[in-house]
């Protein structure tokens, strides 16, 4: 099976390990993710003002490019998924916006594309049962906190493909890989996102709330679907030592992986290219048993 695929800016640069492990894992499962021939940045935030047509132009161009490649689009980055999915909904359902936007970018696009998050594709197109059968290195004994962040949950009516308050799709995938997931109350709590560029201390505090909650529930690994969540949660722990804050004292660092990295490891793929060495909290000691035989 082949499916058009949009990596987005971050997966093309800082998040190459996410992109590489997504493509490699999908290939192993019989799904070829075919990168769009032409694509641009989605804008990284969905514009929230009803008259902000300009910020819809970027994602609209991506959607048009994707529609030329097929009827469905797989997106790995949860932020890109959120922006593209919502933009497509505006174009499909709001006649006034559709006309203005098409006029502005000189196109004739009706919104007849299905935007899918990669997790959704793994669940609905491949199936977690089939993934379970394909596992070569069961992650038994590993205690994982599935972290969903905001982008695949909210707003529920526009983007959610799972229960927005009690999501379990990522937990279900991780369980299929042989690991155990922990239940904790912060799996859909915001990490602070782009506040990091203005108020890194605030995103550190928000991220720490999530990490500490995961640790308290017994997790030894956090798994996410968003490059900005990954960055905020992971980097916060590196900066922690410099922060000299007693609130963080005694906290045991916890690695933060992309779900595709964990999937690839469980599928027995060579993790060269997964960029496990680029994480602030090195996940390799924890995963040593499952990376057996790899450099």
């Amino acid at each position, binding site marked *: 099976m082949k499916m058009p695929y949009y990596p987005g800016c971050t997966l093309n640069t800082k998040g190459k390990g996410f992109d590489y492990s997504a493509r490699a894992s999908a290939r192993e499962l019989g799904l070829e993710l075919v990168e769009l021939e032409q694509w641009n940045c989605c804008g990284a935030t969905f514009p929230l003002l009803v008259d902000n047509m300009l910020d819809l132009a970027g994602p609209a161009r991506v959607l048009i490019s994707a529609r030329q490649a097929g009827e469905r689009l797989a997106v790995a980055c949860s932020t890109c998924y959120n922006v593209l999915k919502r933009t497509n909904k505006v174009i499909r359902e709001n006649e006034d916006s559709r006309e203005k936007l098409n006029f502005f970018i000189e196109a004739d696009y009706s919104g007849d594309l299905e935007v899918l998050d990669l997790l959704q594709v793994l669940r609905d197109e491949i199936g977690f049962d089939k993934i379970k059968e394909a596992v070569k290195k069961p992650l038994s004994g590993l205690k994982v906190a599935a972290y969903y962040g905001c982008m695949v949950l909210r707003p529920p009516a526009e983007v959610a493909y799972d229960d927005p308050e009690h999501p379990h799709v990522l937990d279900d995938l991780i369980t299929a890989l042989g690991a155990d997931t922990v239940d904790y109350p912060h799996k859909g709590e*915001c990490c602070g996102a782009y506040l990091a560029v*203005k108020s890194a201390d605030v995103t550190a505090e928000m991220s720490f709330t999530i990490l500490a909650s995961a640790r308290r529930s017994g997790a030894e690994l956090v798994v996410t679907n968003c490059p900005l969540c990954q960055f905020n949660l992971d980097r916060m722990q590196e900066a922690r030592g410099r922060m000299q804050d007693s609130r963080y004292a005694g906290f045991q660092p916890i690695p933060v992986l992309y779900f595709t990295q964990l999937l690839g490891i469980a599928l027995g793929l060579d993790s060269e290219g997964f960029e496990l060495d680029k994480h602030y909290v090195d996940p390799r000691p924890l995963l040593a048993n499952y990376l057996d035989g790899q450099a």
Partner: protein
Amino acid sequence: MRIRLSAGTLHSDQVRRIEEISGQNLLACYQCGECSAGCPVAFAMDLLPSQVIRLVQLGQVEEALESETIWFCAACQTCYARCPKGVDLSRIMEALREIALQEKGDHLDIEAIRPEELAEFPQQAFIGGFRKYTS
């Protein structure tokens, strides 16, 4: 806090503009506080999210524009997902940011971002931040 209310302040051009560009009915909010209770950034805010919408309901737009709260809102939309009246407060925050950016200028000094941060942060952090803090 003592404020003077009049038909003029309650229905000012700015209040109407906020309703128009956010697409939200401000008076739908009945101040239950669910947004403030669930907001993950409330600890950093000078006004709670529910206080910001209350100020705007009462025409106290200038006060809302002065608040740090509009810049700490991360648009995570937890408030909207849980609002019993379906008010999308994150859109009202965006409307306030938009007006503040137009009236007072950018809220982020791009020049002040350190080179090591430029090298380290993922692209989406900058693009998202520039969209929210600059015009």
